[in-house]
């Protein structure tokens, strides 16, 4: 380690620690007692019927911001697939041994349960479409690593994942236009006629479970196709 590395460390570590401590104390001190956070905590169940306040903020009060985040992922997927377009997948990969293939083949059914649970219980428990979708994308990676790209690329192709991602993003937008059709705001939840159900049930929260499902499929297909695009590039270009 050179001397200038040490000097950089000696400068940057205290600066980062001090800035972090300053920001944390500022955030705690300046949070107003009757600001938006207090309003959300008081009214979120009455407004949307969903228990998880974080999900209510993400998909009801601030659903338009979530649409922006989803389009950031869409843009990055489009950029990566444009970079690596046309490269054939590496078909020499055979995957792992027969022992791993057989056991993971059975266990994959169990691995499906966790992401699906996370997505469908997004309005009741921590998690939601994004977390469950990333878990599904990791499942795509697992299938490719274990079974090898020769077998997996027969049905799990990058272009199919792109189509799935675009379709679910379109579904998110369609759900948002229900409010506009009735003269309300974009992505209106309960006021646009979505039934809020009885609080605590799986079928509650109005449009929130449907938006969670759309985001889950979209994130899973998008991040999975990022991995497949990187995998199919030959690295020399």
């Amino acid at each position, binding site marked *: 380690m050179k001397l200038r590395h040490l000097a950089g460390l000696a400068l940057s570590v205290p600066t980062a620690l001090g800035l972090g401590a300053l920001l944390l104390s500022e955030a705690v001190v300046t949070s107003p007692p009757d600001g938006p956070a207090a309003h959300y905590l008081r009214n979120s169940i009455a407004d949307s019927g969903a228990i998880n306040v974080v999900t209510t903020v993400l998909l009801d009060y601030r659903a338009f911001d979530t649409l922006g985040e989803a389009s950031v992922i869409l843009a990055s997927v489009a950029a990566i697939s444009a970079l690596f377009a046309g490269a054939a997948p590496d078909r020499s990969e055979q995957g792992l041994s027969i022992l791993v293939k057989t056991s993971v083949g059975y266990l994959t059914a169990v691995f499906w349960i966790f992401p699906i649970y996370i997505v469908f219980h997004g309005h009741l428990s921590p998690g939601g479409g994004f977390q469950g979708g990333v878990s599904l994308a990791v499942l795509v990676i697992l299938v490719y690593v274990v079974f090898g790209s020769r077998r997996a690329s027969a049905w799990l192709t990058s272009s199919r994942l792109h189509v799935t991602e675009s379709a679910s993003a379109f579904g998110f937008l369609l759900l948002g236009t229900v409010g506009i059709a009735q003269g309300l705001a974009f992505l209106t939840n309960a006021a646009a006629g979505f039934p809020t159900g009885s609080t605590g049930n799986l079928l509650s929260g109005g449009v929130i479970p449907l938006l969670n499902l759309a985001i889950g499929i979209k994130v899973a297909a998008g*991040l999975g196709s990022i*991995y497949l695009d990187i995998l199919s590039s030959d690295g020399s270009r």
Partner: protein
Amino acid sequence: MTPEVPYYMVLGLVVVCALGAVLIRGYITSIIVLSIFSITVTVSFAFLRAVDVAMAEAVIGAGLMTAVFVTAIGKTRRRS
């Protein structure tokens, strides 16, 4: 032992893992330390009761980014 002590221990581990991920020479070792960093950040988020963020950090940092980094380095390494 006050309840804050385990939290500060986890925060110290976060700093150690972050420095290790930057300073360690080998690519693969650095990636592994980076995923350990994600796990420690996840634990600190769980201490702060931000379970949604902790879940996202766990699946992205430890699951997805590790696979993407390992694949990218395997693709770009010169074959000799």
